[in-house]
């Protein structure tokens, strides 16, 4: 399935905070299908890049060109945060919330949310307050809430950080299912194993710069940049 939201052209994207460059310049292209894994050591700018692409950060320089008018482009994407933000509502109403924002009736929104909640394994928790869910369940909820609008492009900022292997496996299965349904995923992680399991493409960031954007098989067998090679070897890179 070809998304109307792609390709996205990123050119010379820069973020500065307090006069200091924290990201960029980054130029990249998001196209096709699959999962792009954004890798790099802590502080490399992975989260900042995702947030800038999604419009959560005001960019200091550069452009992001969407094939659609920007407001429409923003409506067709979603973001899953490392620490899921849970509304002080039930699980069902959390998942239904984006539909309510788009003007769907409560009954309609809840019906769709219930179906999705069952799909992601939260069927037993529909009426429970979201705040009492476990870490893995919270992230499933956040993922379901992001997916309920069937976004063309989904950004995920280390969604499995702090999750146990069982919960990580569940989340990864949901991500692969989303990919198979045609959602383009851009996901930050520093878990090399997870990157190997999921990536179709890898962006490697180091000190705010995009060192390489390479198909996954190529990245893991013959990374081009010295920083990526060192990272793959498990060396500590500054």
């Amino acid at each position, binding site marked *: 399935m070809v998304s109307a939201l792609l390709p996205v052209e990123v050119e010379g994207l820069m973020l500065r905070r307090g006069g200091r460059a924290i990201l960029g310049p980054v130029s990249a292209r998001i196209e096709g299908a699959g999962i792009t894994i954004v890798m790099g050591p802590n502080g490399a700018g992975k989260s900042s890049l995702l947030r800038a692409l999604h419009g*959560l950060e005001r960019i200091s320089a550069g452009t992001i060109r969407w094939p659609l008018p920007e407001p429409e482009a923003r409506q067709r994407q979603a*973001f899953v945060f490392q620490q899921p933000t849970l509304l002080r509502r039930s699980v069902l109403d959390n998942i239904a*919330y984006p539909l309510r924002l788009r003007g769907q009736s409560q009954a309609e929104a809840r019906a769709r949310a219930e179906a999705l909640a069952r799909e992601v394994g939260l069927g037993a928790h529909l009426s429970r307050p979201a705040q009492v869910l476990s870490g893995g369940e919270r992230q499933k909820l956040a993922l379901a809430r992001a997916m309920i609008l069937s976004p063309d492009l989904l950004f995920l900022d280390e969604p499995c950080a702090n999750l146990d292997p069982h919960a990580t496996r569940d989340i990864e299965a949901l991500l692969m299912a989303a990919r198979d349904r045609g959602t383009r995923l851009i996901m930050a992680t520093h878990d090399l194993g997870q990157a190997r399991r999921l990536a179709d493409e890898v962006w490697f960031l180091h000190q705010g710069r995009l060192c390489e954007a390479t198909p996954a098989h190529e990245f893991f067998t013959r990374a081009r940049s010295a920083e990526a090679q060192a990272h793959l070897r498990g060396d500590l890179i500054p």
Partner: protein
Amino acid sequence: MDRLWLGVTEAVRLLITLDPALVEITALSLRVTLTGTLIAAAIGLPLGAWLAISRFPMRRTVIAVINALMGLPPVVVGLVVYVILSRAGPLGVLGLLFTPTAMIIAQVIIITPILTSIAHQAIRELWADYHDLLISLNATRGQRIATLLWDGRRSLMTAALAGFGRAIGEVGAIMIVGGNIDHARRVLAHAIAPETGKGEFGMALALGFILIGLAIAVNLGVHALSRTERGSRW
């Protein structure tokens, strides 16, 4: 001691027999205070939420002024409302002075800054949590405020109860704009003084018991709300 005991006994009798004067004063009090609290909540809670999510020049100054208004001397509020509503005042033609409406206006002026300030603080914390999510979901400003008000409802109920508690015990402004007219304009807190002056300790104590009862009820309400907050039951 006998006098006190007689007063307490009389107060209990008045409460048990639902003395008409006592009921009248209590009913007027509740009517005025509940109406005042509802109007203040309708103004103060959305205003507090709007202040929490908006950025504009002089915002900090506006917040500081609202916080300062929490300490408005009720007597001064009463005086200003009196001047505005008096026959020679700008709204004198409405004939509202010495009516329950005048009392409600004074109470709204006194408690709106309290509700606004508490709402602002509560919503500001919630906004810090929700900011990225609501931006990410493209919620409009109105949707953001509605979401924050709904999800912050426990804190906001606490704010409203605090406002109610302040208003029900208010004397200074009410006495000036209400007129202290027997059987017509007396509310709980300020009916106690004239009853004591008349030597009607039983009535004064009965009024006091009701006030204390309401204060306890408000505090229990706040406590119950904070328990539901911790348990995330609603």
